[in-house]
């Protein structure tokens, strides 16, 4: 460390004061989005895997999975990857590296930090959905949304994002960062395949269906697939609502801000 010439005078005298709350939250969200966009592993989860499934569905002309089902499933997968896996891993390392500790002591505070994270997730998910919908339409997807089912699908995706973030914070707020990384990736893959997210509930063995149906990933996947045909079933909101209340309560009770 050494002094260097500068044009501006460094006035160290105290002049405390917080920036407006909205600016703090927006600047935090934009910082998180920038960091995520620069992170290759997170981009793989956020875009590359969902795009690969879309292309596979289109290239195999429905022999693997029909594009009509694959497209809304992939939209659900994008919400799952960004709101659960990315948030869990990022928050686990933020806790380990003392980022949460530092930011909690700034005017952003704990509430602003959570709002900023929520806004970052919304910005990332909206970006993902725009890219994936455009690519799916280019590949030949022709959904049969009504205005009602489109709005219901959007509301379901928002509810699912909130639920997945609560689950991510529940995980990242207790486990070590490395354990969070391992568990978040494992849960991502297990529920991608076995959680009714990409594969329709009707294709699971009959005796497993009630179990899969109760998972938040199945509620999102089934809801979005049905929404693309014109109706979103009410039970999908109920399942996600219960998961959100339980995970949100537990995360609030158990979250640790320090490593």
């Amino acid at each position, binding site marked *: *460390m*050494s*002094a*260097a*010439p*500068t*044009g*501006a*005078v*460094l*006035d*160290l*005298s*105290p*002049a*405390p*004061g*917080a*920036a407006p709350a909205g*600016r*703090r939250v927006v*600047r*935090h969200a934009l*910082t998180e989005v*920038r*960091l995520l966009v*620069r*992170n290759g592993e997170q981009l793989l989860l956020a875009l590359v895997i969902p795009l690969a499934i879309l292309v596979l569905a289109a290239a195999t002309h429905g022999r693997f999975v029909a594009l009509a089902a694959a497209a809304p499933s992939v939209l659900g997968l994008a919400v799952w990857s960004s709101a659960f896996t990315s948030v869990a891993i990022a928050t686990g*390392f*933020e806790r*380990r*590296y*003392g*980022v949460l*500790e*530092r930011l*909690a*002591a*700034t*005017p*952003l*505070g704990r509430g602003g930090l959570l709002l900023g994270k929520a806004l970052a997730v919304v910005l990332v998910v909206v970006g993902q959905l725009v890219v994936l919908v455009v690519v799916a339409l280019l590949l030949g997807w022709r959904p049969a949304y009504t205005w009602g089912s489109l709005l219901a699908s959007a509301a379901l995706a928002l509810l699912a994002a909130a639920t997945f973030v609560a689950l991510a914070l529940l995980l990242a707020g207790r486990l070590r960062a490395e354990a969070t990384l391992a568990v978040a990736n494992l849960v991502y893959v297990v529920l991608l395949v076995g959680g009714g997210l990409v594969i329709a509930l009707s294709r699971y063995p009959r005796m497993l269906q009630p179990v899969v149906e109760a998972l938040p990933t199945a509620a999102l996947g089934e809801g979005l697939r049905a929404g693309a045909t014109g109706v979103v079933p009410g039970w999908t909101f109920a399942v996600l609502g219960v998961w959100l209340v339980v995970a949100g309560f537990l995360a609030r009770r158990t979250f640790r*801000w*320090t*490593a």
Partner: protein
Amino acid sequence: MPSPTASALEVRDLTVRFGAAPVLDGLSLTARTGALTAVLGPNGAGKTTLLRCCTGLVTPDGGNVRVLGLVPGSAEVTAAVGLMPQSTGAWSGVRAGELLRYLASLYAHPLDVDALVARLGIGAYVRTPYRRLSGGQQQAVNLAGALVGRPRLVFLDEPTAGMDPHARRATWELLRELRSAGVSIVLTTHAMDEAAALADQVWMIDRGRVAASGTVDELTAGGESLESVFLTRTHGVVG
């Protein structure tokens, strides 16, 4: 905005338990406004837990803390306090300048980031991701992050750990400038020479309690060095 008080920090009978074991066990200390207060203690003495109580991250089991006369963690306090945590305190992928501009955006009247970067010699690595910085460079960025909001009080948790002697001396000079500018400073350290060179008041804590306190002159009045006083009054943890 908090009004000036005689004590920038007041800690009374502070008790924190993690499980059955007390980490802080009836700790009481004060930090005078405009002074540099050093908190010394061996590993596990409770220094970092004390700072976490001061920033509102740890809720005490007993006693109370007043920061600038107010409750820790309140909006008025977070606007007026800077923190340099002991751990890294930054995202691994964030660039040094990017982090400082982000932190500056949280405050109403932040320091000029370019001037701060120049003063702390961060310019050479301002675009380098945090994970690629040396330990001393990371400490410099963390210190800048604690100061960028123009705080009335800064908490520095082992601010010169990992710095080379040049950077360490430059940091000491900066801390003296801060004190002259009216900023109250509370720092934890293991380095006796640092406390001896800088501190207006020293608190030695051991096993969550105050083991000794006073100015450096008062503590060394018997002819012992500060380190000898420390070794006599505190218990070491080896391994």
